[in-house]
C-alpha cells in the first residue's frame, strides 16, 4: 500500500531511510515501523480504499470497504465520499490520460472532485476539510488531481498592484485648498491693479501733466493693492537670496509686495506690459476689454516676481495648450485612427462572410456560390481596399508634414512603422481571396513624379503642385466622410449610439475642412 505514496521516489526513499524511524510522506507524522505507517496511510489518507476494491476484484463496493475501514479505526473522522466516482471495470478511464483503469495502473479517486485517476495522475496534495472542500488552514492533507490543485483559490495568483489615485487626489486637494486661496488673492489684486492702472491712464492720457501725475498716482495705487515690504529690513533677494547692493537693486513685486532683484539671468522679476498680461489671463473679470479699449497699446507696465508669474500664468498657459486644436501630425493621425476604426469594424464581417463562402464551396465543389453573396463580398472587399488605400495615403501625408520639432519627427517615424505593421497584419485576409472574387487587382497608390517637373508653372496664384495636393486632400476627405457616413448608418442599425456621437463630431470636422479646401480650390476643383 505504501507504493501509493505521493511520488514514485517514495519507496526507494523509505527503503534507504532508517526503518526504525519512518515518517508519513504526506503529513510527516513519525512512526516506529513500516506497519504502523502503512496503517496510518490506509486510515488517515485512505490509500487502500479503491485499490482494495480493485484487488478484491468482485462486487465489494467502495462503500462497503469504507465501513470496514471505519470499524477498524472508528475514532478517526472520515472524509466525505458520496461524490466519488464509482469504479466500473473496463469502463472507467483516467480523467487525465484517458487510459482504462486496471490493477496495473491503479485507480484512485481525487479526494476533492471525486473523479477517478490512474496512479500517475494524482500527483498533488491539497488540504481539505471533512466535506472535501478546500480548507487551507485547518484541513488535512489529501492527494488530488492536477485540475483541483491548479484551481484552488489563489494558486496561480500574481501581479499585486495598488491604485493610489484616490489617495493622491485627496492629498492634492488638501494642498490645493491653501494654494487656491492664495491664487484667488493674487488674482483679485491683479484685477484691481490692472483696472486702476487703465483708469489712471485713460484719465491722464493726452494731458500735459501726464508724466508728473501718472507716476505719482501709480505708486499710490500700487501700494493700495498690496502693502509693500519695508526696504530697509531686507538684505537679500527673496528668490535667489543674493545680497542687494549697488549693482543689485531692490524691487517690489506689485502683486505680493516682496522685495526681489531684477537680475536678467536669474529672472527673479520682470517688467511686463499690462496689455500682454491681460491677454494672457483673459478669463479674469477686468473692467476693460482688450480689443475695445486697445489695452495692448497702453505703455504701462508692472513689475512681477517670478513666483507670482508662475502662479498666475503657467497653469493658464498649460490648459490653453492642452485645449488648442490639433494641428499637423496630430490631426492627420486622428483621421488615420478614424479610418482604422472603419477597417476594424468592417473586417470581421468580411472575414465571416468569406469563411461562410469558403465553407459552402468546400462542401459542394460544383455548386456555384450565390451571386448575391459574391457581390456583397466583392463590395465589402472594395470598400476595405479603398479604406486601406486611404489609410496609406494619410500615412504618407503625415510623413510629408514638416515636423516642428524633434518630438514630432520621432512620432512620424514611429507612426510610419506602426501603420506599416497595421496594414501588413490586416490586409492578409484580403490577399488570400480566391480568384473568383478578384475583379480587379489590388490597387496600389502611385506617387506623382510629374509634380516636381511642373512645380515651376503657376496657375493663377496657386502652383500646380498646390492644386494637386489640395485636390488629393479633398479626395481623401470626401472618401473619409463617405466611409464615416456609411459606418454611422451601420451603427445606427446596431444602436451603438455612443460611438455615433464621436463619429458625428468627426464628420462635422471633416465637412468644415472640405468646405475650406473647396473654397481654396475655387474653379480648380473637380468638374
Amino acid at each position, binding site marked *: 500500500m505504501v507504493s501509493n505514496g505521493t511520488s514514485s521516489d517514495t519507496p526507494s526513499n523509505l527503503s*534507504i531511510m532508517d526503518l526504525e524511524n519512518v515518517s508519513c510522506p504526506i503529513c*510527516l507524522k513519525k512512526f516506529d515501523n513500516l506497519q504502523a505507517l502503512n496503517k496510518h496511510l490506509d486510515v488517515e489518507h485512505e490509500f487502500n480504499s479503491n485499490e482494495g476494491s480493485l484487488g478484491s476484484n468482485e462486487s465489494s463496493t467502495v462503500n462497503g470497504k469504507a465501513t470496514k475501514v471505519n470499524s477498524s479505526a472508528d475514532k478517526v473522522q472520515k472524509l466525505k465520499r458520496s461524490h466519488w466516482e464509482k469504479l466500473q471495470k473496463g469502463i472507467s478511464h483516467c480523467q487525465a490520460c484517458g487510459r482504462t483503469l486496471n490493477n496495473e495502473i491503479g485507480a484512485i479517486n481525487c479526494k476533492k472532485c471525486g473523479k477517478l485517476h490512474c496512479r500517475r495522475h494524482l500527483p498533488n*496534495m491539497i488540504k481539505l476539510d471533512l466535506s472535501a472542500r478546500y480548507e487551507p488552514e485547518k484541513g488535512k492533507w489529501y492527494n488530488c488531481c492536477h485540475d483541483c490543485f491548479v484551481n484552488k483559490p*489563489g494558486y496561480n495568483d500574481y501581479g*499585486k498592484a495598488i491604485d493610489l489615485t484616490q489617495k493622491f487626489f485627496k492629498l492634492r486637494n488638501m494642498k490645493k485648498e491653501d494654494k487656491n486661496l492664495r491664487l484667488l488673492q493674487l488674482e483679485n489684486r491683479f484685477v484691481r491693479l490692472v483696472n486702476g492702472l487703465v483708469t489712471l491712464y485713460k484719465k491722464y492720457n493726452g494731458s500735459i501733466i501726464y508724466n508728473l501725475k501718472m507716476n505719482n498716482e501709480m505708486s499710490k495705487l500700487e501700494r493700495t493693492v498690496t502693502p509693500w515690504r519695508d526696504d530697509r529690513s531686507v538684505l537679500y533677494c527673496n528668490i535667489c537670496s543674493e545680497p542687494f547692493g549697488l549693482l543689485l537693486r531692490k524691487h517690489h513685486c506689485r502683486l505680493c509686495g516682496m522685495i526681489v532683484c531684477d537680475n536678467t539671468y536669474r529672472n527673479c522679476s520682470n517688467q511686463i506690459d499690462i496689455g500682454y498680461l491681460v491677454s494672457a489671463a483673459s478669463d479674469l473679470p477686468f473692467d476693460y476689454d482688450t480689443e475695445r479699449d486697445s489695452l495692448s497699446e497702453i505703455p504701462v507696465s508692472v513689475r512681477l516676481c517670478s513666483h507670482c508669474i508662475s502662479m498666475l500664468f503657467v497653469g493658464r498657459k498649460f490648459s490653453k495648450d492642452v485645449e488648442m486644436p490639433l494641428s499637423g501630425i*496630430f490631426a492627420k493621425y486622428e483621421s488615420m485612427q478614424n479610418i482604422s476604426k472603419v477597417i476594424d469594424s468592417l473586417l470581421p464581417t468580411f472575414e465571416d462572410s468569406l469563411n461562410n463562402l469558403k465553407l459552402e464551396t468546400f462542401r459542394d465543389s460544383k455548386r456555384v456560390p450565390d451571386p448575391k453573396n459574391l457581390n456583397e463580398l466583392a463590395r465589402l472587399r472594395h470598400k476595405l481596399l479603398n479604406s486601406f488605400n486611404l489609410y496609406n495615403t494619410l500615412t504618407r501625408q503625415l510623413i510629408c508634414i514638416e515636423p516642428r*520639432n524633434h518630438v514630432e519627427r520621432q512620432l512620424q517615424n514611429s507612426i510610419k512603422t506602426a501603420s506599416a505593421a497595421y496594414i501588413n497584419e490586416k490586409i492578409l485576409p484580403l490577399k488570400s481571396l480566391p480568384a473568383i472574387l478578384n475583379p480587379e487587382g489590388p490597387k496600389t497608390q502611385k506617387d506623382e513624379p510629374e509634380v516636381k517637373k511642373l512645380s515651376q508653372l503657376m496657375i493663377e496664384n496657386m502652383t500646380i503642385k498646390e492644386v494637386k495636393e489640395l485636390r488629393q486632400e479633398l479626395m481623401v476627405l470626401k472618401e473619409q466622410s463617405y466611409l464615416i457616413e456609411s459606418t454611422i448608418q451601420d451603427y445606427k442599425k446596431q444602436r451603438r449610439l455612443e460611438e455615433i456621437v464621436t463619429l458625428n463630431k468627426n464628420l462635422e470636422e471633416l465637412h468644415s475642412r472640405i468646405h475650406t479646401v473647396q473654397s481654396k480650390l475655387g474653379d480648380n476643383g473637380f468638374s
Partner: protein
Amino acid sequence: MNLFDVADYYINKIVTSRSKLSVAKVNEHQRIKVLLLDNNTTPTISLCATQSDLLKQEIYLVDKIENEEREVSRHLRCLVYVKPTEGTLQCLLRELRNPRYGEYQIFFNNIVLKSQLERLAESDDMEAVTKVEEIFQDFFILNQDLFSLDLQPKDFLSNTLVWSEPGLTECSNSLVSVLLSLKIKPEIRFEGASKLCERLAKEVSYEIGKNERTFFDFLVMDSTPILLILDRKTDPITPLLQPWTYQSMINEYIGVKRNIVDLSKVPKIDKDLEKVTLSSKQDAFFRDTMYLNFGELGDKVKQYVTTYKDKTQTNSQINTIEDIKNFIEKYPEFRKLSGNVAKHMAIVGELDRQLKIRNIWEVSEIEQNLSSHDANEEDFSELIKLLQSETVDKYYKLKLACIYSLNNHANSDKIRQLVELLTQDFSPEDVNFFHRFKSLFNRHDKKAQSNHDKDDILSELARRFNSKMSSKGNTAENVYMQHIPEISSLLTELSKNTLSRDRFKTVDIQNHGMTQTQLRNDIPQDVILFFVGGVTYEEARLVHEFNETMNSRMRVVLGGTSIVSTNQYMDSLRAMK
C-alpha cells in the same frame, strides 16, 4: 509562478492604462502616448516588451525622465514608469511643476512612501496627474523562473561579511517586490552560518510585518511558500567552473546584457549581426535550446539549418500563381527565420572559436575532475601539466589552482607545490589572491565537512535524483558536466521536506499567525531561492529541469543579486577585502 506572466501582466497594465476620469482637458480621442522611464525601469521594459508591442498600444515615443532636453508637446499623454528613488522623484517633481505633456499616469515599480506621495501631490499644481499606481517589478526577469537584481557585490557590501546600509535596503526592497508580484507571503529561511543571509532575511521579514495589512493581504494557501536565502560562498565551486549549456556559455564567453548579445568583437561579423537580441520569450529556437549542452546544441543547430534549407528549397520553386501567393504570404515568416538562423549560427560559431582559442576543452575537463573526484594523484599531475603549459591563459591557471585548493585543502604538501609553481610565473598579487582565496573558503569548508557526514543519505538521494534527470536528457556520463551544483541536492531536500532545520534557520515570526509545528508539517509547494552574491545560469538550468520533472507539484523560482560568469565571480572575490 511564471515570471514572464508577471511581466506581461504588469506591462500590459501600464501600456493599456486608461484613467477613468480622463480629464476633459485632453482631447478624448487623442491617444498618442509617451512612455517615460528611468534608468532602473528601462531594462525592465526592454527585457519584456518589444518595440512593436509598444507601437501597437500607440506608444510612439519612449524617453527617459532624466533627459532634461525633452521638448514640450502638450497634445501627448504621458505614461510614467519609474522606481521610487529620490533621484527619480526629483525629476518627476520638476516635470510636474512645468508639465511637458498634457496628462500623466504614473506607475511606480515598488512601494512608495507616504511622504513621497505627498511631495508629488504638492507639486502637481496643474492637476495633470490622472492616475498613480504601484506595481511591483523592482527586479529583472531573465527566464520564466530566473530573476536578477543586477547588484554587484561592491555595491551592496561594505566588506566581505557586512551589508552596506543602502545595499541592504535596496536588496530587501527588491525581494519584497518579488514576493508581492507573485502574491506570496512566505516563511523565510536562510543559511544559518551566513551573517549576510541572516541580516537580509530579518530585513525582509520586518518589511513584510510592517506592510502586512496593506500589501500582504493574500489568500492563505494550504502550504506555506518558502523564501530560502542562500549565500554564494557556501557553494563557490559552481561559479568557478566553465559552463557548458547554451545560455550560460553565451554569458561566459560573449556576454549578455538585457537580452542583447554583443557580437561586434567577433572577427568578420556581418553588420546586421553586431548586436542581436536573444530572448527565450520571443525566440522559440532559443527557448528550446537554451538549456542544452554544447554537443546537443550542435545537433539542434544543424537540424535547424536543414529545416531552413528545406523551406528555401520549396520556396525557390515558384511556377504557378498559387506558389507566388504562398511565397508572399510566408515571406515575412521566412525572413524572420533566416535572420534567426544566421543569428544562432553566428553565436554558436563564436562560442566554438572561443572554446578553441582559450583551450577550454582541456581546462574544463581537469576542472570537472578536480571538483567532483576526491584527491587523486592522476588529476593532480594533469593539473601540474596544465599549469606549466604555455598556451593556457593565466586566468584559467589561477582559477584551477583555486578549485584545487577548495577540494584538497588538507593536502598541504601539494598546495605548497602549487604555490611554488604559481610564484614562478604569476605576479605577487595573484599569488596573494590565491592565499586569500584559500583562507576565505577553508573556514567554511570545515563547517560544511561536519555537516556532510550527517547528510550522507540525503546526498545519495540527490545523486539518484540527478541521475534520473540526466538520463531523461539522454546524456551518458559527460566528462564536462560531472560537477553537480549544491542547489540540486537542496531542491531534492525541499521536495522531500527534509531540508535541515539546523543549517537553514527560520526567521522568528510572531505575526504570521501560524504555529511552528504547523509550518514544520507542510511540504512546500512554492519556493523562491535567492543567492546573495550571485547566481549562475547553470543553476538556473537545474531549477528549470527540476520544475519540469516536478510538474507543478513544486514550483521554484531562482534569483540572485546578479548573474555571475566565472570572470565576474573571480573579480568579485578579488575585490573583497
